[in-house]
């Protein structure tokens, strides 16, 4: 009987094999490989045979400010992205809902998603067209209008980059997140607005008392998902857009670019694996914590 049952499901189990093999190679082996953060890697012995070295990689990691700066930048950028990203997305979603022309509504939705389709390499070309010190559109066409003739060397001045990167991030992502909010707004029962209208509520009052409360579950979910990913950054955004200019590291280095540079440019497996270990571990704890919070606040929108 057992045997027959097993034979019945055998084709289904066989179908799982290729995907399972890929998940083991691509996801589970690297998880096990996190132990190299506690090892002194010797490639002739292999990853798992290398000798243990305790916490020395972590001590080395924090022996100067580089890692701390990367961690600070990652967290601050993510906080900014969460606040401004969601704010802009909600405003755009409400605006889309209020627009009267159906055609205009649809066309703007299609166009808003276009920046999201671009690779960060292409986006870096576009940003360079605006900011290039010699030929850039801003230095040549915009700044002279305000009487600044010599232009600004954007790729040499770290202080401008928090603003530039936030604007680029918002440009790339607002279409995606505003559509998430918009799809919630479409689902709001029209009778709420009618009832509010009969009671004499103004447009503002309807937005504040009907639309925003209906968006609450989506806002909570997206904010907490963002918090769960606060140790991670879009590698391309922080690596490509500033043209990996060393002068800008103080405001553009994040954990992901730090790990990449330590591993592939400096061949420093110790520091990069220690930084990566912290990122994975804290990331895991934050995802679980964020989901726990969501399930407390609103059981329906919990991820698992």
């Amino acid at each position: 009987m057992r045997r027959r049952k097993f034979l019945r499901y055998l084709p289904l189990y066989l179908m799982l094999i290729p995907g399972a093999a890929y998940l083991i190679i691509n996801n589970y082996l690297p998880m096990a490989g996190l132990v190299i953060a506690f090892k002194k890697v010797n490639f002739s012995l292999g990853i798992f045979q290398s000798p243990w070295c305790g916490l020395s990689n972590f001590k080395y990691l924090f022996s100067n400010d580089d890692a701390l700066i990367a961690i600070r930048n990652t967290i601050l950028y993510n906080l900014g992205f969460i606040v401004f990203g969601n704010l802009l997305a909600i405003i755009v979603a409400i605006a889309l809902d209020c627009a009267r022309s159906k055609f205009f509504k649809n066309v703007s939705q299609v166009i808003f998603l276009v920046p999201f389709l671009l690779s960060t390499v292409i986006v870096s070309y576009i940003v360079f067209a605006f900011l290039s010190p010699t030929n850039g559109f801003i230095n040549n066409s915009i700044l002279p209008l305000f009487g600044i003739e010599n232009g600004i060397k954007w790729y040499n001045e770290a202080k401008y980059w928090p603003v530039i990167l936030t604007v680029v991030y918002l440009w790339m992502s607002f279409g995606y997140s505003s559509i998430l909010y918009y799809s919630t707004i479409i689902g709001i029962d029209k009778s709420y607005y009618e009832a509010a209208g009969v009671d004499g509520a103004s447009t503002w009052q309807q937005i504040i008392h009907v639309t925003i409360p209906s968006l609450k579950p989506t806002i909570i979910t997206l904010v907490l998902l963002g918090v769960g990913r606060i140790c991670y950054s879009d590698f391309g955004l922080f690596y490509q857009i500033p043209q990996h200019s060393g002068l800008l590291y103080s405001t553009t280095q994040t954990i992901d670019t730090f790990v990449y540079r330590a591993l592939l440019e400096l061949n420093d497996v110790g520091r990069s694996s220690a930084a990566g270990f912290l990122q994975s571990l804290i990331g895991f704890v934050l995802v679980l914590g964020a989901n726990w919070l969501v399930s407390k606040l609103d059981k329906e929108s919990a991820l698992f």
Partner: protein
Amino acid sequence: MLKTSKIFNFFVTLLLVLLVLACVIPFWILFINSFTSENYLVQNGYSLLPKEFSLSAYKYLWEAKDSIGRAYMMSIIIAGIGVTTNLVLTILFAYPLSHKDLPGRGAISFFLFFTMLFNGGLVPTYLVYTNIINVKDSLAGMIVPYLLMNAFFVIIMRTYFTSNIPSEVLEAAKIDGANEVQCLTRIVLPMSKPIIATIGLMALIAYWNNWTNGIYFLTTRTDLYGIQNYLNDVMNKATFLQSHMNTMISTQNIPNISVRMAIAVIAVLPLLIVYLFFQKYFVKGITLGSVKG
């Protein structure tokens, strides 16, 4: 939908128009400047209006078709193999999971889902792909790491199978003697075209836009670069040249501004065209993403 006053509506329209412009103008700048003569660009910088029309950038692309055309072909090959394999793996993993009676289903789902919660990050992944399964400097290095299958697509696909394909249809087919493979290929797949299109489109975007695998895994075999890595390489050379004006490097091989804009235009174009045709599937993919598994 909200009822709005005239003034409110004016500001709403203004905001949306400004955002539409913000999304369109950068492309406009790429496009216009790829058709502008290099002399004008060097003297006046990137311009918003068409000035001194010239096709020389596109002529250059045609003459350099050995290198640019090659990178373009590589992108097409990588995306073709990658998207096909991705869809096959995703379907094969999602279909068994859509059987509620499959013994061990909970454990397999967890095995899948856990990869979304926890990951090893770049260093161990890089070491696995260079020391245990070596994909360095090979076509596999562009296709296999990170992109071949992910839990998110599988969960969306599985949810679609369970909620859109009536189990009675599958039962009936099995009574008629169909095996699981026949059920999958003759019943489930024909009924799942929308979700296959959605996931195929998302995988296509991921492969077409990927350049990180190129910089991680291709060190000597730059002939395997796709168009994104080619563009990245061109930009690196150009910025290097700008910061080392006095060194003696041959400037011959580094495309000038209008040519760079032209390569960017042809790199964006295929994805834009696919997107315009299939955008309803794409929007569906985004809203599905907010549905939990």
